[in-house]
């Protein structure tokens, strides 16, 4: 029987690897997810059914109750959540996995106090799982708006580093001393939880995707330590696979923003812009009304829409699709320019626009759309800011200098929809707004676009 379990674990491991590989291609992605899910069900079933030894009925009842409850709640939440809230949900589920790993360690500590190597696995699983849990909860709160500011304690970098060293040193002590004092384990748990909070709290909302991806690979590691503890192959392969893939994914995301990972973690945006306040570009801004925008677009040949975070927040993806359809029916060519980090997460904007049935071919990636801007009559920027800021090209002192941007300033006319003149995530002014060919359409994205649509319909 033991062999059958091991073989099933092997099959599950293969589905994880194959699933992740298929997830990397738009055409096979959904299949990949289903493969991995099927492998997971196999692994869970094998663990339950092929277990050797006496198990009390109450234990089975509790396990099935927990699985049933978790399945119902997890499924309902995942099905009901709005597309714009996906990122925080991923963070939430990631935290659950981390907490699960930490709980396993808490229970198992007492059973292995005489084996330092196993205590080491337990301590590692606990520390990494707890950091992932508390960090993910903070990321969750930041993304859903409960906590929308980066909170920076004085000298937070030093504080965090000291705390991290303390956690590691304490864990080493716990292993080396061979203690069976449970209180010490709880202290380690508390320290690790605190570190997770302090690790994420100074990082701004814009960088949360990177943080979630990093914590995602942490949870993978925590699962892998569980695999080491039990000599369980499926936990080991699944955990390490995610740990390694998650790290690469984190670096790829940083790459898309042209920022090194250390810069995200140790923070630079807030501090650099604070160094030179009031130095931003100044000049006159032009405000336009919805009616003028409607006229401009109606008589344009080519229109490019640049969607950003503001569009996601205002839930304006359906409105923008309506606008696109009206313009197309009037013979205007409409495309969407998608910056790699548009929205709340890389690729998030594509998901949002797909939800409102925007055709896949109309979404054009940055490298392909940039050469087309000089031939574009009107660019409509909706709720995007930093990804169209020319400072990335021509201001070496700017914190976003060197980040690849959408060169909308080359278009004949740029219309920027924003709620107010407040700077974007990076906390810096945008000289684009002061250009001669730029006009501002103030207001909530959904309301503003609907006004333009109404004006268009009257024409």
């Amino acid at each position: 029987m033991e062999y059958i379990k091991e073989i099933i674990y092997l099959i599950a491991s293969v589905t994880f690897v194959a699933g992740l590989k298929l997830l990397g291609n738009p055409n096979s992605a959904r299949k990949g997810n289903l493969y991995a899910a099927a492998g997971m069900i196999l692994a869970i079933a094998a663990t339950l059914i092929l277990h050797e030894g006496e198990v009390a009925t109450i234990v089975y009842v509790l396990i099935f109750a927990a699985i049933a409850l978790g399945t119902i709640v997890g499924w309902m939440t995942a099905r009901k959540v709005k597309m714009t809230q996906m990122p925080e949900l991923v963070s939430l589920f990631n935290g659950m996995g981390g907490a699960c790993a930490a709980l396993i360690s808490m229970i198992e500590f007492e059973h292995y106090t005489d084996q330092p190597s196993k205590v080491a696995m337990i301590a590692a699983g606990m520390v990494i799982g707890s950091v992932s849990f508390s960090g993910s909860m903070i990321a969750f709160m930041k993304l859903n708006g409960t906590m929308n500011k980066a909170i920076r304690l004085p000298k937070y970098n030093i504080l965090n580093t000291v705390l991290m060293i303390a956690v590691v040193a304490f864990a080493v002590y716990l292993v080396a001393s061979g203690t069976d004092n449970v209180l010490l384990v709880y202290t380690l748990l508390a320290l690790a939880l605190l570190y997770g909070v302090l690790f994420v709290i100074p990082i701004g909302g814009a960088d949360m995707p990177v943080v979630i991806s990093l914590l995602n690979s942490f949870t993978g590691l925590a699962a892998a330590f569980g695999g080491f503890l039990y000599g369980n192959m499926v936990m080991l392969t699944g955990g390490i696979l995610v740990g390694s893939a998650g790290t690469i994914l984190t670096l790829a995301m940083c790459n898309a923003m042209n920022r090194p990972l250390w810069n995200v973690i140790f923070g630079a945006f807030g501090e650099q812009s604070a160094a030179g306040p009031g130095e931003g570009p100044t000049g006159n801004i032009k405000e336009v009304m919805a009616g003028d925008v409607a006229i401009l677009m109606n008589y344009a040949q080519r229109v490019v829409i640049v969607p950003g975070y503001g569009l996601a927040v205002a839930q304006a993806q359906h409105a923008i699709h309506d606008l696109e359809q009206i313009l197309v029916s009037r013979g205007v060519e409409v495309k969407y320019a998608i910056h790699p980090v548009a929205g709340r997460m890389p690729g998030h904007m594509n998901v949002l626009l797909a939800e409102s049935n925007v055709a896949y071919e109309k979404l054009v990636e940055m490298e392909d759309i940039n050469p087309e801007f000089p031939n574009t009559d009107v660019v409509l920027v909706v709720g995007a800011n930093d990804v169209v800021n020319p400072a990335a090209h021509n201001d070496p002192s700017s914190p976003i200098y060197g980040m690849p941007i959408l060169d909308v300033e080359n278009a004949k006319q740029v219309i920027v929809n924003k709620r107010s003149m407040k700077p974007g995530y990076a906390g810096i002014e945008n000289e684009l707004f002061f250009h001669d060919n730029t006009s501002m359409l103030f207001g909530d994205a959904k309301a503003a676009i609907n006004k333009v649509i109404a004006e268009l319909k009257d024409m």
Partner: protein
Amino acid sequence: MLENIVNFLGENIQMGYILILMIFVGVEVIGNVPAVLHTPLMSGANAIHGVVIVGAIIVMLDTDPSNIAALVLGFLAVLLGTLNVVGGFAVTDRMLEMFKKKPGK
């Protein structure tokens, strides 16, 4: 203690090989994925590390039924692990559902 650790490594050397090889597999599998898929990919990987639930079930199965504290913690662990697995795969599927529709339109 050092001896214990060396012994542990020696006895579990296959796990060491798996560790190294899986790291390379993870790197290889993610390489050159378009930015469009970063979010679903992260979400999918998130669901896969839900495999930690297997550990939670093992803990529960070996728990002495009279140890109430361990039963409660184990119950919580299985519950949270299930949330991670089910929620993770369901969210990923919902994201990818949208990608699927596009070419047909």
